[in-house]
């Protein structure tokens, strides 16, 4: 096919997140099969929470969560942050998530979003995609994809949110949009 083809893909989604900045209420399952509510799992005594969407087949996700895992103890000591990993693996690999995570020794709370309900509610298009929530459960910052070294910026943001500092950089960007 010699023809020049332009492919343009626009995925614009407006969500409830944009208005309330709160986490929508969606049912997830934990690794023991228990049905849990998305608003209940983000409880962390007023400290920040990171929600990381991932899949077992996604290489950048594995790199990101491995990097977070290595730093997790230090991050928690310093800021009290809790990391929640939400797998979007569908029925093909939902049942493999537990062994996959356990073998890697990740100490995060892991939840299954097998039909993408939470993913859709949070407007996640691609994984990895992370949301940083402040102590009140509002989305303070988010990040999509994983580039080498991104964990440094992530930790900067966690520290700011934990200290209650405004995320100046993000504000400027929003004005220019």
């Amino acid at each position, binding site marked *: *096919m*010699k*023809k*020049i*083809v*332009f*492919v*343009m*893909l*626009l*995925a*614009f*989604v*407006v*969500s409830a*997140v*944009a208005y309330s900045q709160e986490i929508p*209420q969606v*049912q997830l399952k934990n690794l*023991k*099969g*228990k*049905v849990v509510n998305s608003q209940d799992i983000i409880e962390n005594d007023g400290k920040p929470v990171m929600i990381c969407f991932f899949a077992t*087949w*996604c*290489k950048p996700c*594995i790199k990101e969560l491995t990097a977070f895992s290595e730093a997790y103890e230090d991050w928690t000591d310093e800021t009290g942050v809790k990391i929640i990993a939400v797998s979007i693996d*569908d*029925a*093909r*690999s*939902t*049942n*493999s998530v*537990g*062994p*996959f995570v*356990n*073998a*890697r*020794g990740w100490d995060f709370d892991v939840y299954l979003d*097998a*039909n*993408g309900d939470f993913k859709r509610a949070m*407007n996640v*298009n*691609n994984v990895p*995609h992370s949301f940083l929530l402040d102590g009140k459960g509002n989305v303070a*910052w*988010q*990040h*999509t*994809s994983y*580039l*080498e*070294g991104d964990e*440094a*910026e992530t930790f900067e943001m966690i520290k700011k949110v934990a200290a209650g500092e405004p995320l100046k950089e993000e504000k400027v*960007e929003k004005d220019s*949009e």
Partner: protein
Amino acid sequence: MGYYNTLLGFPNSGGKNDGFGVPSYWANFTNDKLEVTVGHFYEQFGNGLTLRSYEEKSLGIDNAILGARIKYTIVPGVNIKGLIGKQRYYWELSDGILRGVDGEIQFNEMIKSLNDNQFRFGIGGSFISKYQNEDNPIYNLPNNVATGAGRINIGYSGFNLISEYAYKINDPSADNNYIYRPGQAFLINATYSQKGLGVILSTKWVDNMSLRSDRNATLSDVTVSYLPEITRNYTYVLQAFYPYASQPMGEWGVKGEFFYKFKKGSKLGGKYGTTITLNYSRVHNIKKTAINDSTPIGTTGTYGYNTSLFAIGKELYYQDINVEISKKWSKKWYTNIAYMNLYYNYNVLMGTAGHDNVKANIAVVEATYKITDKYALKGEVQAMFTKQDKGNWILGQLEFTMPNWFFTVFDNWNYGNPDKSARVHYFNVGFGYVKGGNRIQLTYGKQREGVMCVGGVCRHVPASNGFALSISSTF
């Protein structure tokens, strides 16, 4: 929001996907125990064998249900769902009406004294009815098709067993060539894990289990049942070159997966630990026998054929053996290497005749070097060796990443094509910008044709040449 014209390579079913509009609207009420949705919604019962309504933007799949759904928690651990509606058929609605109920009991949650017990036990069941008016001048087709499934989960400490069995009454359709045989599917998945170790063993057996809300639909249109592939989902380009697709008309498969992490500080673990993944899967046809001497297997308007649960046929559909080792050597160096051996039944899985089945060996080496904390260079070499189909391929990729930006260049070269004039380079350059929840990527190059598969349906992606701009935004 929709598209004026369907994207190249997206399913369209004769122009059904062209157009522009508001595809979804819904109203939702939620409290602690009850959730009511009216409008468009997505739902999955159990492992999806009886019902999975979902959306996969990258494949252009969206079989949302327009109707009403109720989810209710009777007591903790006891959940029921009920729904009624019609499925989205691109911009129209599918002909059939779906009604379904699903219930699940997790005993450890329901019974307080068992809350923290090491032994865990749960059961579930689902039922779906599809109503579609008979439209066939020759055959007397059922207006109502009932499908039911039961499932169970048992756990003890690090051990877990999940199983589901589904049965569908006779449902003559375009998928099964209008035969009157009922359908069945059976899944068993056993896992064991502890810190640093994971083992997965699965098997599945499927016979005539395709269910759509329109009996005449084909391809990826209006699927109701979802038959997950038992094989691993590969993401390296050459490992995903010949992807498996579930065969709803009959397949038996088995899979074993093993994860192990050599501890930090051990001989093989080094300073940061080493992760090894092994997996093996094998899929066969199922054994079918003719209903009598004069009727060939699968004849329209007949019972079709006979088979029995776990009757395994002799024809091999797919086999893969894969080893993957990931290791971080130092703060600067990370490598991932993989080797895969593949058998691919081209005719069955691609729907062709007379094509050679593919036997291939595939090797991947990926290395990342961190120049500083924030600047990194990644190199990747993949090679596939096969005497069949298009012969050998080699792929090289370089990627430079810095805060918010990435630059990539790769070439996928079909150097071993038996037809010398078809030894094409698929060369691509691209860059992207990432900030917060936004990602913009622009690539230029030649895209080879290929197949993308998910949940038993595959989509053919045509070859293209030119710019591709992708914008993904969450705000």
